[in-house]
């Protein structure tokens, strides 16, 4: 019996049957890896389909602009030679190509979609294309030109240089227009420029969303910490019972909750009535607690509080009461024992709760819409508007992408400052 394994000519260690040991090890491991992969495959596929794919789709939509180049192919090519700053309309060749492209688009019923797409950039184009559709399909192309006049007769909009500038600006298959729009800019005659002040809204909303989400998170910490502490220090039977109360907001429908907030917070609501009755507030200067930022902060804190309490509670449960006793036996007052010994150990719970609450609140839109009035709405409300109502999904995707990037940047900053391994759900 020798303790030195056999080796081959190249000096590789061999296994008992003469194959190189590395190779048989790899073979053995590969089988394990394959089995592991097969086990996680359903989850992996689920995550890819339901999470990664939509995000990639969103990223793609935020720059995608193929509708125009696909459906006005000849126009777009010829339009390249036209200088929008020349002060003149494009040449007859462009109009003839446009007539041809448009006729095909009409037969495919996509001309109104092109109109809607361009209408996001310049109001009026939507009806221009819709109305043109009814006439242009009757034209005999290329025999009844010249088309420049024919289009001008059809609608004076086609004789507007700005319309053609818009078509040219958005003729590429990809555009940064949605992103520019998302940060209150637009594609002007000379590249990117700021939007007129009376149309600037997104930057304000992004900042407001971040500040208010931070406020909500802080409030959740302040309110949730003592509650979690009490829960963690009660006998588990009582704690479980009280936990139901903490989770109660999840069980009530949004409409019931909204009505409840209104009953509580409005001018003639319970809170104001009580304050007036005990004389803290004059009858003619009741507090505005709803339909503003206060309303959003109160309502969102109420909804999101459990997301703070639960991780805090489960982290606090793991902190043995012996630590506090030890601190006291070492001479620390109650406060010092809490602040130097207990609190630092509960920070992972605060971290986990804060990340949950902050990320959830950044994406909330229904509650701010219902109780936020005008000053208490978030960026997500605009995203929802563009998804549900204006159908400007490209802009919604760009706004969503920026939000995603902001969240990831904050996450990165959190990791740098606090450390992400210092986050615990229990």
């Amino acid at each position: 019996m020798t303790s030195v394994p056999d080796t081959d000519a190249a000096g590789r260690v061999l296994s008992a049957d003469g194959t190189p040991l590395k190779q048989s090890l790899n073979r053995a491991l590969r089988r394990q890896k394959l089995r592991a992969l097969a086990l996680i495959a359903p989850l992996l596929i689920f995550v890819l389909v339901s999470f990664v794919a939509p995000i990639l789709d969103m990223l793609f939509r935020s720059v995608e602009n193929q509708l125009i180049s696909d459906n006005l192919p000849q126009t777009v090519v010829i339009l390249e030679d036209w200088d929008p700053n020349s002060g003149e309309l494009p040449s007859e060749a462009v109009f003839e190509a446009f007539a041809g492209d448009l006729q095909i688009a009409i037969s495919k019923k996509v001309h109104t979609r092109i109109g809607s797409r361009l209408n996001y950039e310049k109001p009026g184009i939507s009806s221009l294309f819709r109305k043109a559709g009814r006439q242009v399909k009757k034209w005999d192309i290329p025999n009844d030109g010249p088309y420049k006049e024919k289009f001008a007769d059809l609608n004076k909009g086609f004789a507007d240089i700005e319309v053609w500038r818009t078509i040219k600006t958005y003729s590429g298959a990809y555009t940064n227009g949605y992103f520019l729009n998302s940060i209150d800019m637009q594609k002007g005659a000379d590249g990117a420029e700021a939007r007129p002040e009376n149309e600037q809204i997104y930057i304000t909303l992004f900042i407001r969303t971040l500040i208010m989400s931070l406020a909500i998170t802080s409030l959740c910490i302040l309110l949730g910490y003592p509650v979690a502490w009490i829960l963690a220090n009660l006998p588990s039977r009582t704690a479980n019972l009280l936990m139901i109360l903490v989770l109660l907001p999840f069980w009530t429908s949004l409409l019931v909750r909204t009505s409840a907030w209104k009953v509580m917070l409005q001018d003639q609501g319970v809170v104001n009535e009580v304050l007036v009755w005990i004389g803290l507030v004059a009858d003619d200067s009741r507090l505005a607690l709803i339909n503003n930022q206060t309303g959003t902060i109160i309502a969102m804190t109420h909804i999101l509080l459990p997301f703070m309490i639960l991780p805090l509670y489960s982290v606090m449960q793991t902190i043995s009461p012996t630590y506090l006793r030890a601190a006291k036996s070492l001479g620390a007052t109650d406060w010092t024992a809490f602040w130097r010994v207990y609190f630092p150990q509960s920070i992972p719970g605060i971290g986990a709760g804060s990340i949950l609450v902050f990320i959830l609140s950044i994406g909330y839109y229904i509650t701010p819409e219902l109780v936020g009035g005008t000053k208490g709405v978030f960026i997500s409300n605009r995203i929802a508007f563009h998804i549900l109502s204006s159908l400007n999904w490209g802009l919604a995707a760009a706004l969503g992408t920026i939000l995603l990037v902001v969240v990831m940047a904050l996450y990165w900053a959190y990791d740098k400052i606090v450390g992400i391994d210092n986050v615990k759900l229990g």
Partner: protein
Amino acid sequence: MADSDQGGAFVEFDRVQKSYDGENLVVKDLNLSLPKGEFLTMLGPSGSGKTTCLMMLAGFETATNGDIRLDGQPINNIPPHKRGIGMVFQNYALFPHMTVAENLSFPLEVRKMGKSEREAKVKHVLELVQMGEFGGRRPSQLSGGQQQRIALARALVFEAELVLMDEPLGALDKQLRETMQFEIKRIADDLGITVVYVTHDQTEALTMSDRVAVFEDGRIQQLAPPDELYESPQNSFVAQFIGENNTLEGTVKEIKNGIALVQLDGGGLIDCKPVNVTKAGERTRVSIRPERVEFDKTRLHADAHTLKAEVLEFIYMGDIFRTRLRVAGQDDFIIKSRNAPDQVRLEPGSEIEIGWLAEDCRALDA
């Protein structure tokens, strides 16, 4: 000690009672006093009230009735952080978010001690527990024994005169536990501190203590130095609890010349030392240590009573032999004999006669 008018008592429990629910007493009428520098162990099964006593002394529980005095001053109403008592907890309770040095520095910081003084003391105490290198580590990076040393150091660093230890070695393996027993004892003796030590491990109690208080049912059953406890248990609980023990039940036939003659229930007469029995006719439980049983007739008094026994089992345990016998109808009678060159190995199935010195057989309460 001379300055104390409590007769040298440094720590004193005076008729202390404790109840959690207002119906049952966990601690019943506890009286205990220990002088400065004593190493006292509270020993008892779980639920016997020993930990409650320790917690009352530390200030985490309040006595329902009675006084606890420290250096002559009643401390019932002094909060724990003002008592200046060092404490070592069962699972060490080292603060996981602090390094070893920070842990040790903590009690000094809360006493508003200057930085350089703190560092010097921390360094000193680390050396005391032979952990000088480990100041920068986190508790989680230490082994159980190392954590134990740090916990001990932390209870010592602020120079407490009284240190409480709540089963501090419970989480260690046997070998490490034995090392630490000596270590703790050494340090306590070197520093001259008073230690109240709680454990349910009798070996630990016997090895380390100046005196041992055996707790059961909320009372101290016996308070005595280890040797006295082992050799002269005052009642059958202590006899059972401390060390291995054979018990036989019977009735006192007569007491004469300080020797009680006991008629065993399973048949046979034996000589005993009357401890808790005073007159003939009383029921008693007699206790004989396995190593004090003799089966070599030449080593007994000629007129000593003996019992017939049947060897059931012989176990070779290295340093000793352990033999199980059937005696007076009971088949759990154990004898231990030293593995000496001339020692007899009893054959299972053989019939022998056993006996003992009357003073080794204690007739206790039934």
